[in-house]
């Protein structure tokens, strides 16, 4: 049923482009021609074997709606004050595998680039955290000390500290340059620590756990500042907004909650009708949207500011029914304002899917992992992606023109 649900929208988009091959090119000169010849559809088509009779009726209606939503047109038109036309928006990306890092003896739960872009941290069920050089892939430190598998890692904003949350109910801070743990572990959770995030100033750490609570820690004192009874099911993911005033959390009960950091109060709750367990959340780079991964093989982008919050985009095309998969936002294109955003996510079929944020089109599928990919992260400044999965490897991919 999942597959049926996800096929109609995809097919509709492809059909619209195929059947209306000539009209768009004639009519809208200003519109960049590249959107009408997406190469990906040729690869996509063989997979979609089923058809639905009702689709053909929908196509003209859908196309007309597409033409009217010319926001992308106006943006491209107004973006260039000088006479040279703006560069066309790329429709595919070409990330190529660069390095495969072996070392973990069990599946890798999370991989994260450091904020300064020099290091990659990966944590695994083998109770260790490994720090790799992001350029050459050399193993720098293997941090041992946890008594059970590590589910979450978070870098401090100055890239000097790494926090790790483990199934042994503790959170540890590690000094990245020496590889030594901070003497005081953060104790307080009653069950597995599942997700971590540092505040942008680095003075607070928020952690979500299987004990359904959210703890806000004072990093300097290694003490719990606030304990929020956030959900009624294990907390799946947490994130801080870019100015540190809001925390977003998600849980297996299908709720996404936005909290005020200063007072600890819930400011908004986002629910999708199906209440599918939400496993991971991220704020968008500008903090206005929340991206949520759910166990119904969907990734949803929510606008939480307007009204009671609504889902503005749904990304499908990957598989996610069992594992907590997380991903990240990335950018492609030229310098701003011709810079576009994409979403990278792992998938249980071993691939990594990249979607364009606005059009929901799949920009690329990266193949290589032989087991579900649990975590994908994007480099803060360069065009690089790191991924880790149950095949115990960490892979680095780079964009090649």
């Amino acid at each position: 049923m999942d597959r049926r649900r996800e096929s109609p929208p995809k097919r509709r988009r492809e059909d619209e482009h195929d059947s209306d091959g000539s009209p768009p090119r004639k009519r809208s000169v200003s519109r960049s021609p590249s959107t009408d010849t997406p190469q990906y559809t040729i690869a996509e088509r063989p997979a979609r074997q089923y058809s639905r009779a009702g689709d053909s009726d929908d196509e003209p209606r859908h196309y007309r709606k597409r033409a009217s939503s010319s926001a992308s047109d106006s943006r491209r038109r107004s973006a260039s004050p000088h006479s040279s036309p703006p560069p066309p928006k790329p429709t595919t990306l070409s990330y190529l595998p660069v390095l495969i890092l072996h070392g973990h003896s069990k599946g890798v739960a999370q991989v994260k680039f450091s904020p300064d872009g020099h290091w990659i941290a990966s944590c695994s069920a083998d109770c260790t955290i490994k720090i790799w050089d992001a350029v050459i892939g050399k193993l720098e430190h293997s941090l041992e000390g946890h008594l059970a598998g590590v589910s979450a890692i978070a870098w401090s904003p100055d890239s000097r500290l790494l926090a790790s949350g483990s199934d042994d109910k503790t959170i540890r801070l590690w000094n990245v340059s020496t590889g030594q743990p901070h003497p005081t572990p953060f104790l307080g959770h009653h069950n597995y620590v599942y997700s971590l995030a540092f505040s942008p100033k680095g003075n607070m750490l928020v952690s979500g756990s299987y004990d359904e609570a959210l703890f806000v820690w004072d990093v300097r004192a290694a003490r719990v500042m606030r304990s929020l009874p956030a959900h009624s099911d294990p907390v799946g993911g947490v994130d801080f907004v870019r100015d540190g005033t809001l925390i977003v959390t998600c849980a297996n009960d299908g709720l996404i909650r936005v909290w005020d950091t200063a007072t600890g109060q819930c400011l908004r709750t986002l629910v999708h009708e199906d209440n599918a367990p939400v496993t991971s959340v991220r704020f968008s780079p500008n903090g206005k949207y929340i991206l949520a991964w759910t166990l119904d093989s969907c990734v949803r982008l929510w606008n939480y500011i307007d009204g009671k919050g609504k889902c503005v985009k749904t990304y499908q095309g990957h598989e996610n029914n069992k594992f907590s998969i997380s991903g990240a936002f990335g950018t492609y294109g030229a310098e701003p304002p011709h810079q576009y955003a994409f979403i990278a996510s792992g998938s249980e079929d071993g691939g990594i899917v990249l979607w364009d944020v606005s059009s929901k089109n799949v920009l690329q599928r990266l193949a290589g992992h032989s087991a579900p990919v649990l975590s994908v992260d994007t480099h803060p400044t360069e065009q690089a992606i790191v991924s880790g999965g149950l095949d115990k490897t960490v892979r680095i991919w780079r964009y090649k023109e």
Partner: protein
Amino acid sequence: MNLSLVDPFVLAQDCPEVITGRLRSGHSTSIRFSHRGDLLASGRHDGVAVIFDIETNGVARKLRGHTRQVQSLSWSMNDRYLLSAGQDWKCVLWDLKDGSRVRTVRFETAIFIAELHPKNDMVFVAALFEDQPVLVDMSSDVPVKHTLPSAPRRSQIERENATEKQVAQDAKQTSTVTVFTPSGDHIIAGTNKGWLNIINTATREVQYSTRFTNNIIVFVRLTPSGRDMVINSSDRIVRTVHLPDLSDPKLDFDTLQLEVEHKFQDLVNRLSWNHVSFNPSGEYVTASTWMNHHIYVWERGQGSLVKILEGTKEELSVVEWHPFRPFVAAIGVDSGRVWLWSILQPQRWSALAPDFVEVEENVEYNEREDEFDIQPLEEIHKRRLDQEDEEVDVLTIEPVKSTTEYEAGDFRMPVLLDIEASDSEDEVVAVGAGQFRRKSPGTGREWMNDDETVASESTANGTTSVPNGTKRRRAG
């Protein structure tokens, strides 16, 4: 970014109401908020300057250098440098990036107040005890001190008819407080005879003087815009004055007239005021009272008393308002604690689910006609996905011109992890809505702070007399 989600009624409250916390690190004698409002600098009786992180109510950094109590604190505009003036006759400029002393300036007498120039971190103005105020330039390694006059500039007629005695008396005046205007072009100085001088920073000459009172001017503070000024004097009257734009080149100082806008005083008890401060917009004036436990808050529209902040059982000395939030910090004279007042924000229950609505009383619910209709799932999903056509911008960061936002190149103080271990006398307790779960680590330690004579004995014993709470925590 939480402002768009918070209840607008809560946002409209601009005056704090109840005590929401306490900070403690030794015996505090002076406090100052940083310009971005996330740090509170506190000078202690033992000369240590402590920086509190308001977000966590914890100590962020300790600056050691003074040997006697810290009299005044002043932040640079980018919050990276802190100027502290101590009773040991020294002013120290600290670099908060690493806690080092950038400059140390020695004086021959005690310092009342030292304020950094808003545009130049290496220049400050200081008012000295029984001496003329100085403008100090610390750019080079050897600080250059320029003496500023305190003699008021009298009008043309007065100058011509001045008697010898008057001239001699004017020359003997000293300034008790000197502050910069927000542009840094002028210095406002109050003297011990009740005159207020406006001194031009570049020429170091008094451009305008006016007499507000016959008593000593104790303190002067300006709003961030520089258009309003509050003056505290020893005649128990708090005056507010509206200032013109002093940087206006068309302003003629000879024809300038500064009128007192409001005079706030307690006619019943004849209380005198310890310290005065503005709220960020200049709408409210707060003052702490001598030998009393209250903080008075007046509003300047009508000049009426709007609030009395209470809750402490001790006299309060310095009271400071947060740069943009309804948040007030004040030092308790007896205990040396910093008390924090703020507004109570009740939890909005409608935020806990999208269809929750807060109502005043019970509402009879009438279902819609189509509420329980069963609709095929695929159609609902298709319809929903169809509506997802708008452009979404996840990258552009709006340049919010608010003082809270950290821009890309702004200075951020590094987070130190070894503060706790360095000094064992800290205690942070939360009061109020019970949201802080931390316990005070052993009550026995309080006597070590309060009684200086006993402290020396206890250090000789080592830490064995300290209750075990702390040691256990550290070993964990």
